[in-house]
């Protein structure tokens, strides 16, 4: 039983270890699409903040966060060549796990500490001092 499964695993593993199979060839077109999109997605948030076009701070904040998130995805696809199938899906698996950890770390810290600040130290706002 053990030898059979081992050899089967060995062959399956060997095939998928072919050289450079997990890395799609980069293309000039791909890099240029990524670069142009990145320039646009960088220019818009800087322009929004420096000109104050949207007027409302909260709306501007949400807009630049969304644009930043889109730009990160653009970099992942066109510069880091992330595809669901690269390295038999292990890079995508690691990425999804990391994104979950990052979201928990960021959202959890900000959420908890925001409530600590507002609930534990009343009257510490300098603008409220006499």
């Amino acid at each position, binding site marked *: 039983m053990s030898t059979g499964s081992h050899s089967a695993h060995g062959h399956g593993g060997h095939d998928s270890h072919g050289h450079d199979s997990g890395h799609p060839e980069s293309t000039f077109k791909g890099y240029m699409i990524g670069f142009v999109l990145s320039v646009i997605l*960088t220019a818009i948030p800087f322009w929004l*903040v420096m000109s104050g076009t949207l007027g409302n701070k909260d709306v501007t904040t949400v807009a630049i966060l969304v644009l930043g998130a889109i730009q990160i995805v653009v970099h992942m696809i066109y510069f880091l060549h992330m595809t669901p199938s690269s390295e038999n899906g292990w890079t995508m698996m690691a990425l999804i796990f990391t994104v979950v950890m990052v979201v928990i770390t960021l959202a959890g810290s900000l959420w908890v500490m925001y409530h600590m600040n507002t609930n534990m130290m009343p009257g510490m706002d300098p603008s409220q001092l006499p």
Partner: protein
Amino acid sequence: MTTTTAASAALAETKEAPVFYVADEHDHPEGSSTMLGFWLYLMSDCLVFAVLFATYGVLGANYAAGPSPKELFDLPLVALNTSMLLLSSITYGFAVLEMQKKNQNAMLFWLVVTGLFGAAFLGIELYEFAHMIHEGATPQRSAFLSSFFTLVGTHGLHVTFGIIWMITLIVQVWKFGLIEANKRRLLCLSMFWHFLDVVWIGVFTFVYLMGVLR
């Protein structure tokens, strides 16, 4: 006596010793798992930055009656800095394309250009830091500045090591040519360099732009 030894010998023959590892090791081509391993390193680095971002997010509004982001940050300078890093990303892309076409000299040229853009980014960042410290906005001034210098400084340190790595690879390719090992290293540095650009998107959005908005 003899019967028991015979029995135990027979038992030992029939009962295979348990094996807890793959006995028939198929050969891995050298470096076949390097890219995945390096990706896992980048993901762990991502967690380091996530913690630093969270720290900045929590402490970023505690000015201790010191300077606020609005007074300190110079957005045109940050925009220039961002463009340097973005340009270095696309020039590294050109280097990878030349590597695939086996044009060693063109590859080295783009690698040098990338290194120069990276150095320009670092120079602008150090100028900004020096300017802030000169104005009294040192890391010791407030929690905001401590977390700011830690986060942005860690990114700058990564860029520094990326440039050192790039110089090392330029020398290696120059001496040994575009051998398989050097190609692998170039692709690893490519991932590292583009990853730093991804982190910088977070920095300019979360720290600089949102700081000025606040």
